């Protein structure tokens, strides 16, 4: 495409290699001024890498960047900021124990003589900026005490404070409620009206349809073209992103729920800081059904799972597995009672990355006599057991039994965890954010496995921050807010607006 001053940013022929891996292979991006331009691609397609190059965090191996028709070289975030580029990262770049004002001014401080901070003036500047865009943030609040939606606004303010004309938003909606997403889209349109340009990275089609003017698609580091959103459809975008026709709905037969397997009554759990996160929660999960818990991160989901798995102590209440008390015993007891859990953070809870794959598949079961009598651990048995799992769950690369887990891709690591959990034939399978960071193919696999486990007769407790996932996969949808279940619905009897309202603490009508 011609280089022209009509465009805020033009990146042409961008190539980026990491050692032998080519992350971007000749990608183009042309963003018109005062538009919202979406970049669509699966996890790992290279969207964020492309934006990190624009923001100066990485240097491209080949390719050019033009801004307003002039070629620019951006070798550091400082230079990007000087060129009027601001970036809001998916994982917020905020110092948790700093105040809003401190976070905003960091690196571009308001100072009196000799580098002494002038916090009063800084605070006024932040307030003025916040009011100008109607952000309504408290400049003195600490980041750790404000909501995720607020934190996002602080991130946007950070960019605006530095005079950003072009805002890059990386997966901005991943952690927001439907209502917060609406508010964000409103803010985005407001920013456009005030002359800014926005680039939004996402793999969510609906948001693109709602917010973007144009959409560029990247598949495995290759540029697939740019489409006008008005004349396109979700299915068209999806097939361009994945490279085949994808079925956006989850296929499953109706559930045949049996007896109650997991029964939770009046459960109260405190977090590390001693704050009650689960507050008298009641929940039942039956065999042969998937109960999905919808809710925004930080409403007690982690503590609920921790209490069931006995990683955290319950203050009061009871957790029963087929009538047997699990409360405040040990993680080992939870497992032997028939509960297997797919953790939310696979690197933290799910895997021992420096262990080889076959060592990772028996983290729970290595004590069984099957894997060696007495003190002995039989590595041959471990290996043959793992070979079966690799075949059965299509873990790649084939023959990775003796490779370190850290060498596997995210999707295959997740498959290894699921294989390990499912192979113990649990009576209750807890899946906490089971598709986090996975691409479409792997997500399909995870969902199919959950449904297959349900059909085997297991009870499934799905906890996800992705409302779509909960609505598509679950037979029963429960909303968690402020540590309590605030509504329970059969699949198909509730729409996302109602759920969104409940997730944000509103009343169900």
């Amino acid at each position, binding site marked *: 495409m011609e280089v022209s001053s009509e465009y805020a940013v033009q990146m042409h022929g961008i190539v980026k290699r990491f050692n032998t891996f080519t992350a971007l292979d000749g990608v183009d991006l042309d963003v018109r001024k005062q538009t919202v331009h979406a970049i669509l691609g699966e996890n790992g397609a290279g969207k964020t890498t492309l934006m990190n190059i624009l923001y100066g*965090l990485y240097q491209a191996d080949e390719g050019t960047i033009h801004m307003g028709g002039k070629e620019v070289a951006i070798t550091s975030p400082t230079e990007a*900021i000087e060129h009027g580029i601001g*970036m809001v990262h998916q994982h917020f*770049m905020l110092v*948790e124990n*700093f105040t809003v004002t401190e976070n905003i001014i*960091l*690196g571009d*401080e308001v100072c009196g003589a000799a580098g002494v901070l002038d916090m009063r003036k800084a605070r006024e500047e932040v307030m003025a900026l916040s009011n100008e865009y109607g952000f309504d943030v408290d400049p003195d609040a600490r980041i750790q005490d404000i909501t995720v939606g607020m934190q996002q606004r602080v991130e946007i303010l950070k960019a605006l404070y530095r005079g950003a004309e072009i805002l890059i938003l990386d997966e901005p909606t991943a952690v927001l409620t439907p209502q917060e997403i609406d508010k964000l889209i409103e803010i985005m349109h407001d920013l456009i009206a005030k002359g800014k340009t926005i680039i939004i990275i996402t793999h969510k089609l609906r948001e693109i349809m709602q917010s973007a003017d144009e959409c560029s698609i990247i598949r495995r580091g290759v540029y697939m073209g740019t489409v006008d959103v008005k004349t396109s459809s979700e299915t068209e975008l999806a097939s361009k992103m994945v490279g085949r026709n994808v079925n956006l709905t989850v296929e499953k037969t109706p559930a045949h729920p049996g007896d109650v397997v997991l029964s939770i009554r009046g459960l109260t759990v405190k977090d590390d800081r001693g704050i009650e996160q689960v507050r008298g929660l009641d929940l039942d999960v039956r065999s042969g059904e998937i109960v999905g818990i919808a809710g925004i991160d930080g409403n007690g989901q982690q503590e609920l799972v921790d209490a069931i798995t006995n990683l955290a102590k319950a203050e009061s209440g009871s957790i029963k597995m087929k009538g047997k008390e699990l409360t405040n015993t040990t993680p080992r007891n939870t497992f032997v009672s028939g509960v297997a859990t797919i953790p939310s953070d696979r690197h933290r809870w799910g895997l021992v990355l420096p262990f080889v794959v076959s060592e990772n598949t028996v983290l729970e079961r290595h004590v069984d006599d099957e894997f060696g009598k007495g003190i002995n651990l039989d590595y041959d048995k471990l290996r043959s057991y793992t070979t079966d799992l690799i075949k059965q769950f299509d873990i790649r690369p084939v023959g990775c039994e003796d490779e370190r887990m850290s060498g596997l891709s995210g999707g295959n690591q997740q498959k290894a965890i699921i294989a390990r959990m499912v192979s113990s034939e649990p009576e209750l399978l807890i899946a906490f954010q089971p598709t986090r960071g996975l691409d479409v193919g792997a997500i399909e696999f995870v969902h199919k496995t959950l449904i297959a486990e349900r059909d085997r007769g297991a009870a499934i407790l799905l906890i996800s921050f992705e409302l779509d996932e909960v609505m598509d996969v679950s037979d029963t949808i429960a909303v968690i807010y402020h540590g309590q279940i605030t509504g329970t619905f059969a699949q198909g009897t509730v729409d996302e607006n109602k759920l969104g309202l409940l997730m944000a603490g509103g009343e169900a009508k």
Partner: protein
Amino acid sequence: MESFFLLIGITLMYSTPLVFGALGGVISERSGVTNIGIEGMMVIGAIAGAAGSYFTGNPWVGFLAAGVAGALVALLHAVASVSFAADQTISGVAINMLAPGLALFACRSFFEGAAMSPIAPKLPKVLGESGLAGTPFVNLNVNVTTVLALIFAIIMWFVLYRTKWGLRVRAVGEHPAAADTLGINVYKVRYVCVLLSGMFAGFGGASVSIAIISQFTQTAISGQGFIAMAAVIFGKWTPFGAYGACLLFGFTQALVIILGGGDFVVPSQILSMLPYAMTIIVLVLFVGRSVAPKADGIPYIKGSR
């Protein structure tokens, strides 16, 4: 009454090297680099201080030399832990092995094979050598290093909490990636902080060798660096907190000396354990309640989160 002032005087005297060491720990860990090598840097400071003072006849030259020598050793730690993303614990331990060897080697080379230096000129006392002599307050005429340590603590507090550099140091120690995206050079900040850390540790060494005693000996520094690290934790990674913790540890050492000198029933060997046992007890009581800087001890590698 006199023994009360004696207790205070000795407490201040023995807490001073700890304060310097702890300030070094605070500045390094605030920027996200654990520095177990404080002990070794103090040893180097002790020999550099004694040698500098002995050869020039001016203890202040010795004091400055100690700071420079400490910073030079810290440079090793900075290269390893900042540039090479090395295991900071191993690097610190290596420095603790290297430094005594280096110090003794230097000592034997300087002083014809002796394992201790000759008597070197000492830094002055605040009110001169004979200040308050003959009054009950004589023990309050503390070493000038004691006052310097307090001044440095105040300066460090001001820089950390009232200036833009402090804001940046704290940001780098909490969330280096965030600082990086705002154009703050994480590596540079960490280098500067680790070097400062070495300088303070060096001062700490000199405040033993040319203020408390007046020569370098093999046992001049025996665990003070580690006690200083405990003080950093106890003091919640703040300059004043660490200062207070050092006073407490200094107090236990003063107790050892005062009780050990009298006709006390506890054998001196058992008394000598007191500062170390106290450190453990304090850690047990307080460690859960203080939170380290989030990125403390984690190497920052650009492009990874």
